[in-house]
């Protein structure tokens, strides 16, 4: 799988590159700025672009703008955005149109090497990744009439995993249950929350997030 990285800290950029290299990825570009990344993506069209949200020159929204632009111009390129701060608003902005091949992770997550590698893999194959911290914030949100109250504790766990982008198989593996059981939980949750059942897992992510946010 071919990866391009945009990160202005040399230390982190090289760390990320060698981590991904070790894990068998083909790191085709290491960029310092958003413009450089755009160029590399245009010419090499990698499977995934990993983008730091704060990039030079202003360190404001250059990374996010580049990520949204790449999604627009190259739908086949997965985009994984790394953020120093955990902002629901940014996740929603990134996922607004579709969650296919999109990820939003707290930068710290790269130290969980296995999870991070899995996340890059998932975004590279068109799946979605939402930082668990975002999901737990949404779940812990205060509501006046809480529809989540009808869920069993196990269903809440499944909902949380669904929202972070896990597939049914991923949920089954994580909770150590059968795939069939995971599927049963998922359809039960959709029934209780009154969500329309959707085809792909990434569409499911968006539906759950929108539900939790509203």
């Amino acid at each position: 799988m071919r990866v391009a990285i945009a990160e202005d800290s040399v230390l982190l950029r090289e760390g990320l590159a060698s981590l991904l290299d070790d894990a068998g990825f083909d790191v085709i570009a290491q960029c310092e700025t958003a413009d450089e990344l755009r160029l590399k993506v245009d010419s090499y069209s990698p499977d995934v672009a990993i983008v730091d949200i704060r990039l030079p020159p202003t360190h404001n929204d250059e990374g996010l703008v580049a990520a949204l632009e790449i999604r627009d111009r190259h739908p086949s390129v997965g985009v994984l955005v790394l953020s120093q701060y955990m902002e629901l608003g940014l996740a929603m902005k990134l996922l607004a149109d579709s969650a296919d091949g999109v990820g939003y992770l707290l930068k710290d997550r790269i130290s969980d090497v296995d999870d991070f590698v899995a996340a890059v893999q998932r975004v590279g194959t068109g799946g979605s990744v939402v930082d668990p911290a975002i999901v737990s914030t949404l779940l812990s949100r205060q509501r006046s009439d809480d529809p989540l109250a009808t869920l069993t504790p196990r269903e809440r766990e499944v909902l949380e995993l669904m929202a972070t982008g896990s597939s049914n198989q991923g949920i089954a593996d994580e909770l150590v249950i059968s795939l069939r059981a995971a599927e049963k939980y998922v359809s039960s949750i959709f029934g209780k929350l009154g969500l329309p059942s959707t085809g792909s897992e990434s569409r499911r992510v968006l539906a759950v997030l929108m539900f939790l946010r509203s």
Partner: protein
Amino acid sequence: MLAAASAAAGSVLLAHASDDLSEPVLEAALLNWTTLPYIAAGSIAWARRPDSRFGRLMVAAGFAMFLSSLQWSQTDVPFTLGMAFDLLPAAILLHLFLAFPSGRLERGAERTLVVAAYTAALGLQLVKMLLWSVQGRNVLAVAEETEAAFTVEDVELGLLSALCLGGVLVLVVRRRGLVRPLRPSIALLVDSFACGLVMVAVLLTAGAFEWPAFETIRRITFLVIGLTPVAFLIGLLDARFSGSTLRELLVRLREEPAPADLRDSLADALRDPSLTVAYWLQDFGRWVDAQGRPVDLPTEGSGQVTKFIDHDGSSAVALLHDPSLADEPELLGAVTAAAAIALENERLHAELRARLDELRGSRQRVIEAGQEERQRLERDLHDGAQQRLIALSLELGRLERRLSGDADARGRLDRARREVAMSLEELRAVAHGIHPAVVSGHGLAVALESLTVRAPVPVRLDVRLEGRMPERLEVAAYYVVSESLANVAKHAHATLARVDVARRDGGLVVEVLDDGVGGADTERGTGLRGLADRVEALGGRLLVWTPHGGGTRVRAELPCA
């Protein structure tokens, strides 16, 4: 006086003795009608304003007109003199009328006209006299070329006539360009100047073409010219007794409350719409208007004149007025005397306003400097410690993967990694507390999502903003919401809250409402004082309604400018 009386007597005697005059009494009366009023009015003006040259010029004009009466003399030398100065009155009247009110010719075109007129009246006259002996009475004649002499005379009369009409044009143009409308009596005077010049022009033309009605025209012209000093005297008296506008001003100054704008009242009283009142602020070392805005005093020739009004021995107030007001020193003096106390009051107000502005500016600068410093600190933390810690934790993670055999080492590395993760978490909170970078980076709407989702009570968020607003506004609005929601959590015992953000008149309006117990202490503990400072420093205002048992509503209005 004596000179005038003897000149008058002389002219009467000359007229009587003359053989040329058919009606000596009428001629002498007409001559004195055109001369004595000039000398009298000029003397009065001279006595009242010794520094103005106009009075002196007027007296000189009167005497110059007497000179022409010498040609009634039967003796050759006085006759020659009288003839030489025959047309001088036309030139000197043009000079006098154009030199009103200062007694000086201010513009180049005016000077050219007057110099040309003197040249024609004296120079061409001399040429004519060299060529024509007038039956031997003119002692200056050196030849007897009467044809040539008459041609010179025609040119002379035509030229002078044209110059007088030019003078009328100057008067008309000058009047059109006036900022300050003329006092009615002065307008009458200027009209009499124009009439006089027109009549002189007609008379000269009549002379050149030898119209049959010449004599009648001459008498009418003399009558008209004699009216000018009368109009001038009316003007002088009017300036002295224009007390009604002053009374009106006094009534207005005594009104309760005082007139909103002292300048307008003074401008009305002085009839000068261009009037500017400037106040000296000693501590700031500058002149300002009533609103505290800096004022530049006019320089020489800028079309305005400054009158300083002293208070406690130093100039405290300056009136910047139209130059024409300088001719009415009585009016200017009376108005400024009447308004002295009001002006000093207004000066103190202007000083207060200037101090307030300065204070507001310095508060804004202090807050902005603080903001910049915080932003820099947050950036330093992000680029420095946070990045290094993440890199460190990444290194630990990779190491942990490599040591797959050694369970003890893996466990210890994992613990180390968790420690780093916690440090990062804390650092992130500190950095966010220093400056909400997400507001600068991605705007208020994005930043408010997390803020409201994390609030301890359900919050309905309604942001109606298209695009970004100026960063300082967005940051201030963010603090208003964050501080208000923190208050809701700590004090309100609310079950619901609402956050509304909308653009209004180019600015930003933020409202945070809750359904809690209300009665918030707006001075202590709630951070509302600090919020108010922040909002007010941006020129906005913070309103808090917090009735007991009625919930709390915080509203911040942030203007864009």
